[in-house]
């Protein structure tokens, strides 16, 4: 153990809302290694890293750096000790330029003011040195996701990070971008940096990392040399049981069309065409996968489908009714259910109870009310059923949903959206940040709905998921349909990546087959 560069012992963390995110965790990092931390969603990985970076203070436990006891009260302490972190969610000030973001907190000075010339010089120098090219004077809000990540890594390096923590850096990247990142990380390793790498993609972990720490439910399950364990074993340790990654699904006869999108186009306030003549259709009992790099029109597409995009042109039919210009309430009235990407913002009300969150789309219906009052008994009964059926780990229907782990929270949302016998389900990143066990449960539920004849639009950054579940698949690039695959099972992730990056493009006729009535 004396060889440890950094060691955490007996770390516990209780968040102000009462969640115990870490309970007696031990973690150690060797100099010069790339060390993976894996675990289900809510296992406490990010929390542990935030403590290593001084963003959260441990409720209990101690930390040693090169054998010396250290205590980081703020990220500044961590930065001073050579720890840098690239967060799961970007930590950038959108209205600032790249340079301003780079120097924030360590501004070079000239008199009382900021030395802007010097700031720009160091930014250029560093990005040349590490081969991470960015425009120093661009506003960060205008940058692509990949670019933003480069800025994040540069920020850490500028602060002299010897230990670099990367929290799920690949979740939003294309395979190609991921590969590029891996090359850069290996370079950094050669340059003597130590890297902590968090990912849910075990394949990546296997190819990149030297050692793996596995976490489950706020505790460490063990540390392994990467070479000595298989993906299956890791999964089992993470979830505590075997996970089936393959689903048997029957090819079904084509049903009636439920959703028809024709010539959908939209130009945003900045004048950028974010949707460009999108055409596709989805039938009963059919799952349409939508792949694409973030920012290629998915967000706008979902907004349009849920009646949230005034100013869009073209038509969207749900079971013969036109969606355009109607609010989400009316859209839901047509039998549309929606699992939003951001569960904290659109999917749930954290301070409300599980029961309150389960009833949110149907509380107004007659059967849930008795006279002027809500039928509390009936709601409680339904909540209990859901908790049982979806194996939601909680204390009961009255518990605040904010106290649940991310995966369990997602289960509540899926339970709500899938139990109203929808005609059409729009599932946006339904398993993002969810552990394998929960993901499996959610996938099975989607397939059940498919069996019952529900049409499903599945948007996901997890290509494996899209390929595995979809009956057909489109790729969005630059707001338009770049490719359509009738049978995704034959398509490789690499090939998809080429379409996603715009390196290849199907003819209009080929892509147009997505709109097949």
């Amino acid at each position: 153990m004396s060889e440890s560069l950094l060691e955490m012992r007996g770390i516990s963390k209780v968040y102000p809302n009462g969640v115990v995110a870490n309970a007696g965790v031990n973690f150690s990092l060797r100099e010069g290694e790339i060390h993976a931390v894996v675990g289900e969603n809510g296992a406490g990985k990010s929390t542990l890293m935030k403590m290593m970076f001084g963003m959260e203070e441990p409720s209990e436990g101690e930390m040693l750096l090169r054998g010396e006891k250290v205590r980081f009260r703020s990220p500044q302490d961590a930065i001073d000790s050579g720890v840098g972190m690239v967060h799961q969610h970007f930590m950038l000030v959108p209205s600032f330029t790249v340079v301003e973001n780079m120097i924030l907190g360590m501004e070079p000075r000239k008199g009382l003011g900021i030395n802007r010339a010097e700031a720009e010089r160091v930014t250029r120098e560093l990005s040349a040195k590490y081969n991470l090219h960015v425009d120093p004077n661009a506003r960060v809000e205008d940058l692509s996701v990949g670019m933003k990540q480069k800025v994040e890594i540069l920020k850490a390096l500028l602060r002299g990070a010897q230990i670099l923590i990367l929290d799920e850096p690949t979740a939003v990247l294309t395979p190609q971008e991921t590969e590029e990142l891996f090359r850069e990380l290996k370079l950094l390793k050669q340059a003597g940096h130590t890297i902590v790498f968090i990912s849910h993609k075990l394949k990546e972990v296997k190819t990149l990392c030297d050692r793996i720490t596995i976490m489950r439910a706020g505790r460490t399950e063990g540390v392994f040399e990467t070479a000595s364990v298989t993906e299956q074993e890791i999964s089992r340790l993470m979830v505590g049981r075997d996970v089936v990654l393959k689903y048997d699904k029957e090819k079904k006869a084509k049903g009636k069309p439920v959703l028809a999108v024709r010539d959908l186009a939209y130009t945003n306030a900045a004048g950028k065409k974010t949707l460009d003549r999108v055409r596709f259709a989805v039938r009963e009992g059919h799952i349409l996968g939508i792949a694409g790099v973030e920012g290629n029109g998915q967000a706008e597409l979902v907004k349009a489908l849920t009646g949230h995009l005034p100013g869009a042109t073209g038509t969207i039919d749900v079971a013969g009714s036109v969606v355009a210009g109607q609010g989400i309430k009316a859209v839901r009235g047509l039998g549309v259910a929606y699992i939003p990407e951001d569960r904290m913002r659109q999917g749930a009300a954290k301070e409300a109870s599980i029961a309150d969150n389960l009833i949110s789309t149907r509380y107004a219906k007659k059967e849930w009310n008795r006279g002027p009052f809500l039928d509390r008994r009936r709601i409680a009964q339904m909540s209990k059923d859901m908790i049982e059926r979806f194996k939601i780990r909680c204390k009961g229907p009255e518990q605040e949903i904010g106290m649940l782990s991310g995966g369990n929270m997602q289960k509540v949302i899926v339970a709500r959206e899938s139990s109203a016998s929808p005609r059409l389900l729009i599932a946006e990143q339904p398993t993002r940040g969810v552990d394998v066990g929960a993901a499996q449960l959610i996938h099975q539920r989607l397939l059940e709905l498919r069996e019952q004849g529900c049409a499903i639009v599945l948007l996901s950054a997890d290509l494996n998921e899209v390929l595995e579940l979809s009956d057909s698949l489109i790729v969005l690039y630059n707001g338009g349909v770049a490719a359509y695959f009738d049978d995704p099972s034959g398509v490789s992730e690499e090939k998809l990546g080429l379409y996603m990056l715009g390196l290849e493009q199907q003819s209009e006729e080929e892509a147009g087959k997505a709109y097949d009535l």
Partner: protein
Amino acid sequence: MFNTRNFEKIRTLAVVLISLLIAFLVISIISEHPLKTIGIFLFEPIRTVSHIGNVVEMSIPLMFTGLSVVLLFRTNLFNLGAEGIFYFAAVVASSVAIHFAANAFFHPVVAVLAGAVVGALLSAIPGILKAKWNVNELVSSLMFNSILFGVGLYLLNYYLRDPQSFSNSSYKFRPSAMLDVIVPGTRIHSGLIVALLCVAAGHYFMYRTKWGYELRMTGANREFAEFSGINTTKVIIMVHLIAGFLAGMGGSIEVLGMYNRLQWASLPGYGMDGALVALLAKNNPASVIGAALFLAYIRIGADQMARMSDVPAEMISIIQAVIILLISAEQFLKFWKNRMLLKEAGVRE
């Protein structure tokens, strides 16, 4: 008792105790007979029936504004406009009480409803601005307080003022408009019954009806509510209407229950007190009763103290500030809760 479920109650109790301790400290510094003085502060409000009556009387307007603010805060609307509406509604109710005639049942009903309805309509303006164009309701409601005060004072001075009187006081209300005393020996008036009914209605509304559900969800996460199909624009306007109605009712009832003419030449402060009551009540309608009584109690205690000892009543403003700061201090005593949580999670021992 000492588990996380009771934490909020224990914390509120601790804050109250700390505040009283500070009160005692301040009193000891100033007073020549600190023990006697604090005795007056603590016990005088319940020494006689009429003093108890004073506490209850004062709690009535606090219940109305407190409930009004609870609804707004619960919807996550930081609107402090109850103050101006309380005042303006009192002006409206006074004009009805002065310029219209009716029998002793309908006259107060009409006057109070007039004040309440005007309050609701005025309150709806910042509500609509917020709901439709996301105009910051805090700023607009604060501005409305000053606007309503100015206009109300103008109406008082130009249309209601008794030319016989030296200062800004209105004509006398017609006796038919005034509220009846319901407890002999005190001035507790029928407004108390209305206040209690409103609190009960507020409780059932918030927790048992679908409209209350919409309100709570909009407050907990507006975007989520929106995505669930709740028309949050409507909810926000509705809450403003109800809150304005309650604050307006409070102003009308206060003036008709406690005065025989309108003489307010400055904002009476009950709106801001409503925020304090809402805080003490932890945004629960039912707890508004206790919170309002508590606040009235310490104020009457301070008045008695000022009257019977050498400590001025303004001392209470220090205590109130401490209570507000500590009660809404989320992190205050949290370390202790965390320790309990770790224990409950089985990490310790």
